């Protein structure tokens, strides 16, 4: 992979999508946080196209980073949109572990079991 493929400067993307906000209303969102749409709740009528796409993507469980990749938007920006949709009851955080809490030994043992089955 060439250096240019991983690292480049480009014009700052507009934060118009988040009404200028750079930070989400909650700080528990991480790239691996699992999200799922609340059943039967379509995006609000006032939703932007990105919010609608986001809710539709989350009809099954996906991590925040996956949603960002499919939307072709930065993770930090999608975190703001997600946070709003959680606040409005359209999305739920499926993985409810707290931020800053490391996985316990039991979880790591299960990860090992899974990897050994490859």
């Amino acid at each position, binding site marked *: 992979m060439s250096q240019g493929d991983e690292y*480049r400067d480009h014009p700052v993307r507009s934060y118009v999508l988040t009404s200028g906000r750079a930070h989400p209303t909650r700080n528990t969102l991480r*790239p691996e946080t699992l999200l799922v749409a609340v059943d039967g709740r379509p995006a609000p009528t006032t939703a932007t196209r990105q919010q609608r796409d986001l809710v539709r993507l989350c009809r099954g469980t996906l*991590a925040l980073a996956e949603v960002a990749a499919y939307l*072709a938007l930065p993770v*930090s920006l999608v975190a703001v949109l997600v946070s709003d949709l959680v606040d409005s009851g359209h999305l739920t955080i*499926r993985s409810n572990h707290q931020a800053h809490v490391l996985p316990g030994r039991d*979880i790591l043992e299960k*990860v090992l079991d899974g990897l050994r089955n490859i």
Partner: protein
Amino acid sequence: MDSATSEPTAGQHLAPSVARSVKVLVVGAFGVGKTTLIDSVSEIEPLRTEEQITTASVGIDPNHPEKQTTTVALDFGRLTVSEEIALYMFGTPGQRRFWDLWAGLADGAVGALVMVDTRSIEASFEVLDQLELRTKMPFAVVINQFPDSPQYPVERIRAALDLLPTTPIVRCDARNRTSSAQALIQLVEHALTFPAFQKAPA
């Protein structure tokens, strides 16, 4: 950036039973094979997001930090390791100027695979320095074997990289799924020896 939204195809959503995610970082110099390793283990086509960071470059104007914004690509993959747990692997360049990106990513991570190319071992120094200075994260060093890689004994590599005797060093062919999984296994086993992971289930 293309504004078109791509849709996940069938099977790309996680199973409804998955309610926990765990992540590891895959770090290393440019072109060392981070995405190759992620690709070989991932159950989905590796995805890419771009993150905007403010680089700590010299001459930055504190009143106009957005002028110094840089985009860094994050390639990542996913592996469902049990009915309830998905493992995410995030590949990121490890250099100091990307620290802002790292800091958020490192939070809550099980650890990092540090990929090293023995043809340019010095390219790994900065990444290892960052890990040791700025995190308490467990890490394992992965020697990605390229066809023309010199075959150094492991202990010579340990000395060259100034690694602790306990730090795992794994030889790996990042294109090979089993070989890449073995590197992840070594990392998680190493993490289990850290006090931070000894406590009761979170």
